[in-house]
């Protein structure tokens, strides 16, 4: 145990944790919204994120964006990649809903079956990209990690006085971007007419449909919104880590789901709390002990929190959120 490492680098670790946690939180939104409305874990959501990272890479490749372009070009390329990633992820999420979940809903299948089709979809998506990689790179085990050009170069933007912590532009983009998107989504769900429909279905699907809420449309909306948020997360992830891989979604998805459960699944603000909490705990614990155990810390925290607060830190409440 090395508490000195944690204390001496506390400011840096906290920043690391918040960056990591913001991305978890954005992906967690997709899980939490789908769970809130349909009471099911969308196991293919991790691959929705994965598709987003490939969309970013594809956009950069097509427009020929590389590191070291002019500021205007960088902004244009990033915004374009963001839009493409959001579209691709939302489209994937919607396709998964149509193919894997809707037919089962019509048959009134129990939740376990939804889970299995979700896993099936996830495997199909992973394998599709794995095969594409093999096709393009040709190695016998051509499922390599692919680099994404760091269009936005990392520079120190400002230094926090007092703790002497240098904050880079990429981190500001990730943290601010994630929080702005979450606030926008929260406002949308709490204030808009469509958002009211989402909350109504989450609270009581039968009564909501009696009141004229189109449940099918709400479910589609939820998948599109969750997918778009995963697309944003994908762009922010590539800004921070500059890589993607065919199975990149698995571990992020697992963490994001953990974050959603930690915060209280079905609770949008809970996803933010859970994501940041998980990110910070992971980074702190890795500093104290050993980073190869990171995933173990995440799950131990999950079990401990669930033992004392079985509905997560903030409790389930998509349906109960007040306007």
């Amino acid at each position, binding site marked *: 145990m090395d508490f000195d490492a944690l204390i001496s680098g506390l400011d840096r670790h906290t920043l690391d944790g918040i960056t990591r946690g913001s991305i978890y939180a954005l992906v967690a939104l997709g899980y939490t919204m789908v*769970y809130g409305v349909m*009471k*099911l*874990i969308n196991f293919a959501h991790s691959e929705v994120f994965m598709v987003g990272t490939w969309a970013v890479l594809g956009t950069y490749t097509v427009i020929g964006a590389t590191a070291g372009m002019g500021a205007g070009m960088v902004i244009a390329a990033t915004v374009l990649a963001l839009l493409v990633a959001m579209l691709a992820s939302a489209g994937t999420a919607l396709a998964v809903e149509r*193919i*894997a979940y809707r*037919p*089962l*809903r*019509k*048959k*009134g*299948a*129990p*939740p*376990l*079956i939804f*889970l*299995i*089709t979700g*896993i*099936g*979809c*996830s*495997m*199909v998506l*992973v*394998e*599709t990209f*794995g*095969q594409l990689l*093999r096709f393009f790179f040709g190695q016998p085990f051509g499922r390599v990690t692919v680099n994404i050009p760091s269009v936005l170069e990392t520079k120190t933007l400002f230094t926090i006085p007092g703790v002497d912590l240098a904050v880079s532009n990429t981190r500001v983009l990730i943290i601010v971007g994630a929080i702005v998107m979450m606030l926008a989504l929260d406002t949308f769900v709490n204030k808009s007419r469509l958002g009211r429909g989402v909350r109504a279905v989450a609270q009581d699907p039968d009564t909501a*449909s009696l009141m004229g809420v189109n449940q099918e449309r709400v479910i589609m909306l939820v998948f599109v919104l969750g997918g778009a948020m995963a697309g944003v997360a994908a762009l922010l992830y590539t800004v921070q880590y500059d890589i993607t891989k065919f199975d990149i979604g*698995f571990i992020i998805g*697992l963490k994001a*789901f*953990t974050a959603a*459960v930690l915060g209280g*699944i079905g609770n949008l603000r809970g996803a933010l709390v859970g994501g940041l909490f998980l990110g910070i705990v992971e980074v702190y614990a890795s500093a104290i002990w*050993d980073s*190869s*155990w990171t*995933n*173990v810390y*995440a*799950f*131990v925290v*999950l*079990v401990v929190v*669930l*033992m004392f607060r*079985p509905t997560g830190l903030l409790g389930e409440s998509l349906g109960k959120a007040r306007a």
Partner: protein
Amino acid sequence: MSQITAAYRGLRLGDRWGGAPQPVRWFVMLLVIAFAFYLPYLNVLPFAYIRTDLTASGSDWASVLFLVVVYMIVAVGLNVVIGLAGLLDLGYVGFYALGAYSVALFGSTNSPVVQAMQSKFGFSEEWAVPFAICIPIAIVMSLVAGVLLGAPTLRLRGDYLAIVTLGFGEIIRITARNLDDVTNGATGIIGVPVPPGPEIDGRSFFNTIDAERWYWLALTILILIIFLARRLENSRVGRAWLAIREDEDAAAVMGVAGFKFKLWAFAIGATLGGLAGLLFGSKQQYVEPNAFMVQLSFLFVAMVVIGGSGNIFGALLGAFLLTYLPERFREFVDWRPFAFGVALVAVMILRPQGLAPSRRRAREFEDRRHEAEEAAADA
């Protein structure tokens, strides 16, 4: 006589089976078992086409049979947890890994645990825990793990339970990979002991080449387990599981102690998982953490659900299909996971109750489908 056959014709296979006289059932069962034992030597055309070693890249037929039977043991165990008690366990691979690792840790002279014991108690360098004692160790370890995992988490609802168990499976694997001083980390442990037996042609009876002996051993264990599991299903415990699966609150009102029986299901499932892992590790004579990825857990769950959860025959069928088919069609090896994903989605959408569901389960699905249709018609 013709009346009887007419009555038979209208019935499903299961009813005919149940209605057949006892001696007939015993005879058919014995035939099936004898055929199962004969399978490794099956070489009569056209039946030989089911063998997996026809092509140059094909895998050893007896080894495939062994793996099928090991996964069948897994499926029977997981069927208790998912199919009977209705608990979604996505970390079943953790128990499987524990079983494999306990025989490796205590039985192999290469394991740091055995080496530590040797130096502590002054044993010779050839000393290791005998295989026969490794079996109870593996069973106790997976049983304890099942209770340790179940006790804090079984109060959680279904989906929470799923993610916590998933985490448990990962914790076991990461621990096995990172605890270099105990498990040799990513290198794994070689020299996992095999069951004792006479030497034939200078090789021990259970060796890496003659896989059919492993297959017979696993098959014998599987038959015993099926027999026990069927008894369990029709016992008081089994009925309690069904009650909990249908409606936990109603079961609690009727005096069924939900937590206790769920823990029982978890413990029994874990034990069978551990036993299967032990067989696997011992046959491979080598364990490493990468053999126990989470994806294997998904495969296990898929076996139970595709076959038809709640029915031992269904679980066996699912385990057989999902293990055998990919081995038989190895030439499409690159596309196997893809096909597997497509098959999962397709089977579940077309037949959500599974290929061979238990009759009670099939009726439930029928009810739910009617309800969903009525709700759709009302809307």
